[in-house]
């Protein structure tokens, strides 16, 4: 039974005022602007867009500010906001082969058409704290680095960058992706999910899933719980055009561009009587520059395909219902955090029950002793 608690309005009002004050911090320092958050805490903003499942950098920056940097709270704010808007339709699927590439690496081929482009990456940094970033100066180390990046620019013409999986596919060495039959993909935001689900439903769920959770599950597959011997066929990050077929126009128009990270995981192969040995694959696609998330998603996506590929089940990352039912951090935090809200009546009932049981227990002990 659910019993409501009433009262506390004044305390709640004061607590929210105090929250606003603490969020603002010391007033002798300027308030942080949304442009600063979007421009300098880019990866936090990207994570909020990816897991909030709403692409809008300005809104995500606002959510980060309002949530005092608590990213799950920020994601929650974004999810709540998206329910207030009507939906105009669905876009034509993004074409990642036509991406304006800002980073692209492959762990399987060192020479590939279009080349390997490190882009802005933490890879190969020494992970030493750079104390110069904390020093306020007119011309800081960061600005020097920016001018170094400018000086090293190379004139560059657009080059074709085919996906690595397409190259492998041409030779038939890797399984083909499921064909586009023209069927509308299932939408978990519009209809309740019932298990088992198809691959597109899994991908949608994983794309908005919690990065930490998927990282841990992906890691578990590497440690032997549903091992699939993965290679990063390719990771690419950059800008893709969003094309939309507006009903009143009768042709597709560009709505602008969004940034996405794509990970093509190339996994262990197996043949059968019908299919010659070939590599299998796991796929990750995430809003923004979220490489760790895209890789984790691809590993988990691959693990969830055990049945289709005739593999042995048993590992946590293969359990579709478990994996997908718990990967949404807004649902998870809602249920976990509700425990701290008033449960006085429930607890009173339990207290009463325990007291009665104890009395009965004591009476029994006494009887036994006599």
């Amino acid at each position: 039974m659910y019993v409501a608690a009433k009262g506390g309005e004044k305390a709640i009002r004061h607590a929210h005022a105090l929250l606003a004050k603490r969020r603002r911090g010391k007033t002798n320092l300027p308030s942080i602007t949304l442009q600063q958050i979007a421009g300098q805490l880019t990866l936090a903003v990207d994570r909020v867009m990816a897991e909030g499942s709403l692409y809008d950098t300005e809104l995500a920056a606002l959510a980060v500010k309002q949530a005092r940097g608590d990213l799950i709270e920020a994601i929650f704010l974004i999810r709540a906001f998206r329910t207030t808007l009507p939906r105009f339709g669905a876009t034509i699927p993004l074409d990642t082969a036509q991406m304006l590439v800002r980073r692209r690496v492959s762990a399987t081929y060192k020479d590939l058409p279009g080349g390997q482009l490190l882009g802005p990456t933490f890879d190969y940094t020494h992970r030493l704290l750079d104390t110069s970033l904390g020093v306020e100066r007119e011309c800081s180390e960061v600005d020097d680095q920016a001018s170094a990046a400018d000086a090293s620019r190379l004139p560059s013409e657009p080059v074709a960058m085919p996906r690595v999986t397409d190259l492998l596919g041409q030779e038939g060495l890797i399984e083909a992706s499921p064909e586009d039959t023209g069927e509308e993909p299932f939408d978990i935001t519009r209809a309740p999910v019932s298990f088992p689900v198809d691959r597109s439903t899994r991908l949608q769920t994983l794309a908005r899933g919690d990065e930490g959770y998927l990282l841990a599950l992906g890691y578990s597959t590497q440690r032997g719980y549903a091992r699939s011997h993965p290679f990063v066929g390719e990771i690419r990050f950059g800008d893709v055009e969003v094309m939309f077929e507006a009903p009143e126009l009768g042709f597709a128009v560009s709505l602008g561009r969004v940034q996405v990270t794509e990970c093509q995981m190339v996994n262990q192969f197996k043949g059968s009587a019908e299919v010659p040995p070939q590599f299998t694959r796991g796929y990750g696609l995430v809003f923004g520059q979220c490489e760790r998330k895209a890789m984790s998603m691809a590993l988990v996506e691959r693990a969830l395909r055990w049945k289709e590929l005739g593999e042995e089940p048993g590992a946590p990352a293969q359990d579709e219902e478990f994996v997908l039912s718990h990967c949404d951090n807004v649902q998870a935090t809602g249920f976990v955090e509700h425990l701290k809200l008033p449960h006085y009546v429930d607890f009173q009932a339990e207290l009463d029950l325990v007291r009665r049981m104890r009395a009965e227990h004591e009476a029994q002990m006494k009887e036994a002793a006599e």
Partner: protein
Amino acid sequence: MTLTDKIPNETSALEGARQSLMAVLARADRDELAAILDRLGPVPPVTDLRQPETGLVMLRGRTGGEGAPFNLGEATVSRAAVRIASGEVGFCYRLGRDVHAARAAAILDALWQDGQRRGAVEAALAPVRARLAAEEGQVRSETAATKVDFFTLVRGED
């Protein structure tokens, strides 16, 4: 060439040009659009066929990059539809929540469809096209500077 061959080709060429226009209008910022309207002015009276509004579109991806589609996540979009006094109807759909920019872009789309004004609209948009091309060029050249050539070493004896 027969007449029936010619008409679809001309239609598709015009459609292609309008697609290119709308792609630039979707990426121009609010100040750029306002400046262009100023430059083209005076603009004939405008009727809103649809009040400018913000909503969502569901962005889709493809399994494996090229396979069956799936729902990736939503994005904010603003749209507007206008008719100018000379009768042309203009539309705009663009990412983000700037309804003023969407309305300005829809007006420019309508003006562009008037053959007499098309040249002027294109000329006024040229700086935006140049800015977008320059930004893209900068991304390409900055990224090109981080191109690596990995090589493998044979270690030990065989």
